[in-house]
């Protein structure tokens, strides 16, 4: 089963955008309304759920312990995974992660990692031997377009919400004490996806627009307004001028979104 758009619908969307309009009345560079709910999964050390239009993504953060990577003995570990859960779309099938969920996870990971959002040096328990491992799991519950931005926003919200257990080290053993403290963060990246449709640049593509888009560009912007990750996707192209234009749009939108978030 699939939700292929009819050619008539595809043409309609393209023509509207050519005229600077969108089916839901938004401007080309407007985001849909969104709400973020934090801390809804008590079992997880951190969690957040975003509803961006009808796109619904839940991110859970679990904190574990483990060995550091051999080339970074004084850094904690961050790992991001994404599931395109079958109930989220008639097009998602159960099974091992496909290229779309791998790409989504790695884009979200890149934004967080390259902006150095997580103070990984503060996650060391016993240098070289034991560190905290932050597991970020992106769970897509409903796909109505722009999973990248929604997942990235929910992921950072979940990290902001994450509580690290207090601990002490006794005879090389980690003992959990009472109480907790927030996960140390020093950056809050925001990812903005710009789609190219009918030669125009459109922000926050909705699922039907994604079926018509020729290419997309996702850029992660950190608190200073600098770019920390980029991913171009889909089998189309951008001219170099369009890339610079998209970068400008991404910066503006990231600044706008940042004001709406209470991180």
């Amino acid at each position, binding site marked *: 089963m699939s939700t292929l758009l009819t050619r008539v619908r595809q043409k309609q969307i393209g023509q509207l955008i050519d005229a600077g309009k969108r089916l839901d009345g938004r401007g080309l560079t407007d985001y849909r309304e969104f709400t973020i709910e934090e801390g809804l999964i008590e079992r997880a050390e951190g969690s957040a759920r975003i509803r961006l239009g009808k796109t619904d993504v839940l991110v859970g953060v679990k904190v574990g312990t483990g060995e550091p990577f051999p*080339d970074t003995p004084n850094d904690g570990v961050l790992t991001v995974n994404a599931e395109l859960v079958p109930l989220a779309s008639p097009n998602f099938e159960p099974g091992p*992660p496909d*290229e*779309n969920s*791998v*790409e989504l*996870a*790695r884009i979200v990971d*890149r934004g967080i*990692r*390259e*902006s150095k959002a997580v103070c990984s040096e503060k996650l060391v328990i016993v240098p070289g031997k034991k560190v905290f491992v932050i597991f970020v799991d992106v769970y897509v519950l409903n796909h109505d377009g722009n999973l990248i931005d929604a997942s990235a926003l929910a992921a950072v919200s979940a990290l902001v919400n994450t509580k690290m257990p207090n601990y002490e080290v006794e005879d090389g053993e980690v003992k959990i004490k009472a109480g907790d403290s927030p996960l140390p963060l020093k950056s809050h990246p925001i990812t903005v996806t710009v789609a190219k449709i009918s030669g125009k640049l459109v922000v926050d593509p909705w699922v039907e627009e994604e079926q018509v888009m020729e290419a997309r*560009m996702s*850029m992660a912007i*950190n608190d200073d*307004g*600098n*770019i*920390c*990750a*980029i*991913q*171009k*996707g*889909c*089998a*189309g*192209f*951008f*001219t*170099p001028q369009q*890339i*610079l234009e998209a*970068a*400008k749009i991404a*910066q503006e939108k990231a600044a706008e979104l940042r004001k709406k978030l209470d991180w």
Partner: protein
Amino acid sequence: MSEKPEKLIDKKGIRLDGRKADELRPLKLQVGVLANADGSAYIEHGKNKIIVGVFGPREMHPKHLSQPDRMVLRCRYHMAPFSVQERKSPAPSRREVELSKVIREALEPSVFVDLYPRAGIDVYMEVLQADGGTRCAAITAASLAIADAGIPLRDLVVGCAAGKIDDTVVLDLYDAEDKLGAADVPVAIMPNLNAVTLLQMDGILTPAEFETAVGMAVEGCKKIYAMQKEALRTKYMTVKEEAEE
């Protein structure tokens, strides 16, 4: 493990491997290197060694993956276990899955997919030795292999990266510079159509640095594009010259 060098680029603008900021690593391109593939190419870019084989257009297997009105392009980017410092498991990693996807999305815009409905093309890229910038080199070789298979193309696709080491924007980072540097921006382009089909970035760049990096990468791509055309001409020209003797 070697110690981290103090500077990746010195006061005179010379990098650790002797290059200037806007200098490419040495390149070698060969077309038609595999007898069984419909099209093939081999690239050496710095210490990178990548071989690409292309099969098709041909019937798609499994059939349910074919599209009724267009051709399907399948790409597999894979690293040989001995290609990197620490032996890598032959099983596809998440990085290889992602790169296979972005490389396909970089090559597909060059292919006239509407010409051969229900058919498929398989592009197999094997990294035999890796030293940074493999996805760009793989794209450069893959595009040659696709052309070698006689598949009609809008243009060749060529890849090159730029980035930032210490505080300088430089062209074509090798592995050490990528790992220790501040940012890496791989780009692929169809030069005659001014179409960027691959663009990624990791690291941190100001918007101005990003603009410089993209410009530098595009210039690097154009230099490599001239070498691609030369490699294609060399293969078909030797036939012509032999005949004229």
